[in-house]
């Protein structure tokens, strides 16, 4: 799974449906099934992400896969080895699945051209983060029953966000409408070609959307001159309870985490009854189990 761009609506539907079965496993007293016994998964995290890595690792363990973690610090890559050599070495160890996080867009596609293993993209630069897109969709589907006709606003740094990209691709395929909202310098060129609406007014987004997916804002974007200050950002694009109260009906609040409380989101919003941020985390494990099962299930021992 390199990105949601390669998946059809029907395939996304299948993954989301399978995720529900996986979530049932997570809710059992014994949270482990032998489905992927004998399957070896390498978590190749060449850019740090404790959250996504933990979520994948847990999903792998719940399915009884053998897992191996490989991180950027201390790896041969930090000693100047190329990614291709790293990958070929991993392959030579006879693994089945590589879950990969890397700062370069297209790096999982690059790896897929050189490896036999199944590659799962766990975030490639600002390109895609397909399992995040799926877990966001699952969370919204839980709440609304269907994604069709739903209007979701992505708020914040769209330009640097792989979460935004996978959300846009997935939601559009499932028949939802997408609004992107942020300062003009954080909206990438040509994004309207992906069938989204653009607004620079948070109030406008709040008035029209059913749900807000609030993206993390990074301080270094300010020092790069993309917006004047965190203070100004918060004032115009920070999601606060007061702003949300303008909506006719309560909006569902999503955030892929980690949150900058008091910057893009205030605590009273993050912790409100309309926030599904913690459900997103649970769904993340379920979705990753589903993806692993659907992609690697065939490689498991026949008895399992």
């Amino acid at each position, binding site marked *: 799974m390199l990105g949601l761009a390669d998946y059809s609506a029907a395939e996304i539907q299948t993954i989301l449906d399978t995720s529900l079965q996986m979530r049932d496993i997570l809710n059992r007293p014994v949270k482990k099934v032998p489905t992927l016994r004998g399957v070896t998964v390498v978590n190749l995290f060449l850019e740090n992400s404790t959250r996504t890595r933990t979520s994948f690792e847990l999903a792998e363990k719940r399915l009884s896969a053998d897992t191996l973690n490989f991180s950027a610090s201390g790896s041969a890559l930090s000693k100047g080895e*190329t*990614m*291709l050599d790293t990958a070929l070495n991993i392959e030579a160890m006879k693994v089945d699945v590589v879950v990969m996080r890397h700062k370069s867009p297209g790096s999982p596609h*690059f790896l897929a051209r050189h490896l036999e293993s199944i590659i799962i993209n766990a975030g490639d630069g600002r*390109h895609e983060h397909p399992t995040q897109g799926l877990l966001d969709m699952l969370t919204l589907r839980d709440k609304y029953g269907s994604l069709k006709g739903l209007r979701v606003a992505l708020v914040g740094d769209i330009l640097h966000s792989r979460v935004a990209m996978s959300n846009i691709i997935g939601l559009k395929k499932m028949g939802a409408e997408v609004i992107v909202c942020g300062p003009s310098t954080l909206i*990438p060129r*040509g994004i309207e070609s*992906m069938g989204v609406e653009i607004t620079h007014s948070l109030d406008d987004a709040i008035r029209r959307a059913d749900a807000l997916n609030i993206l993390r804002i990074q301080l270094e974007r300010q020092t790069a001159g993309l917006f004047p200050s965190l203070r100004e950002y918060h004032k115009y694009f920070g999601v606060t309870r007061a702003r949300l109260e303008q909506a006719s009906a309560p909006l569902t609040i999503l955030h892929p985490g980690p949150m900058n409380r008091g910057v893009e989101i205030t605590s009273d919003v993050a912790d409100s009854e309309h926030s599904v941020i913690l459900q997103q985390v649970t769904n993340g494990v379920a979705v990753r189990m589903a993806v692993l099962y659907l992609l690697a299930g065939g490689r498991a021992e026949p008895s399992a």
Partner: protein
Amino acid sequence: MTSKYSRFDKPARAENIFLQGARVVDPRHGTDQVMNLHIRDGVLQPTTNDAPTGAEIIDLRGHWITPGWFDLHVHLREPGKEVAETIATGCMAAMNGGFTGIACMPNTNPPLDNAASVNWVRDQARPFPVDVHIIAAVTRGRAGKELVDMTEIVEAGVRAFSDDGSPVKSSAVLANAVQYANMLGARIFEHAEDTYLAEGGSMNESEWSTRLGISGMPTIAEAIDVARCVLISEFTGGAIHICHVSARESVELIREAKRKGIKITGEVCPHHLLLTDEACKTFDTNFKMNPPLRGEADRQACWDAFLDGTLEVYCTDHAPHSWEDKTQEFDVAPFGIVGLETSLSLALTHFLSKGMSLPTLLDRAVYSPREILSQPQPRVAVGEPANLTIIDPAHRWTVKPDEFKSLSHNTPYGGWELTGRARGVVHRGMALIQTF
């Protein structure tokens, strides 16, 4: 079967050869007819119906012979990166592509910023039927600060200066360089780029960079520098040549400047005429170059400008990179593709069928580049030194990068089916004539 004329590493002397039955096309000198050419010791002899005794007859019926093609923008990696290309392999690639002349850029390591290194490069190229003209650096070490010893370098035969690979960042340095070069009858070749606007980018800033999550380089990063060059050229009266034009806005600025009589010239590469940024969607680094592949409107604007002469030079920006360097993540891999061995065939396959006449194509590929370097034009006429490109216009072939003479294979055209190919070159008293 190999003849003595098919060795790339040791081209044979053109002692006494009779090129029989080709269509000889030299539009600037009014020639377009089927005829025989007799070459003795590298010089064109009076035409005869039958081969003179002792001459080796080469049957070229169905072929074209034109004055030697010239590639005005080539990177030979020697000195510094001989694993990607050497002067010798670059010359062999040029011969394989049908070029009898190339101009190489100075961004080697160390850069070509003095007369000694210019002479050294030319010496390395001597065994080949390819004129290697050196474009020397504008500034010492290409550091953008002090001008090179321009007079001495011009005395060594150089007629162009460029910090290509990078722009000359300081407008003051650029203005001085243009004035000084103008005094010496030379011109500045500018790699047009506002490096702040393009910073961190790996492809055109567009719908596709957004979809792919790749940092973009906007078209205006190029055009702003073109505008600066136009103003500096107008102000100083010196000539500036804009390298590898790729953006619609640049084309418009150059067209307008020419209309006003400002001494601006421009070149265009096949990839900017044939490909768009959508090609990056597989993250294949063979589509990563600088300036990057642009959108369709830019491609069309470049084509129109190429047709009407706003961009008067066809060149390749031949930029060899080793397999190791190109086989990396898209944003990490270096910019550039090789071009010498596909350029002529791409032109024959794609330009003539799209309304460009053969004389116009030869204007862009034979005459204009030499004009910009203040070089004499080759002429297919009795008593002239033979400087020829031999073309089989009907030869169909598939681009196989592994068969390139270049040390590097970083081409976006692998697998392309092309019609028309250079069969050889005759120049500097030597001949290379391939048998396919």
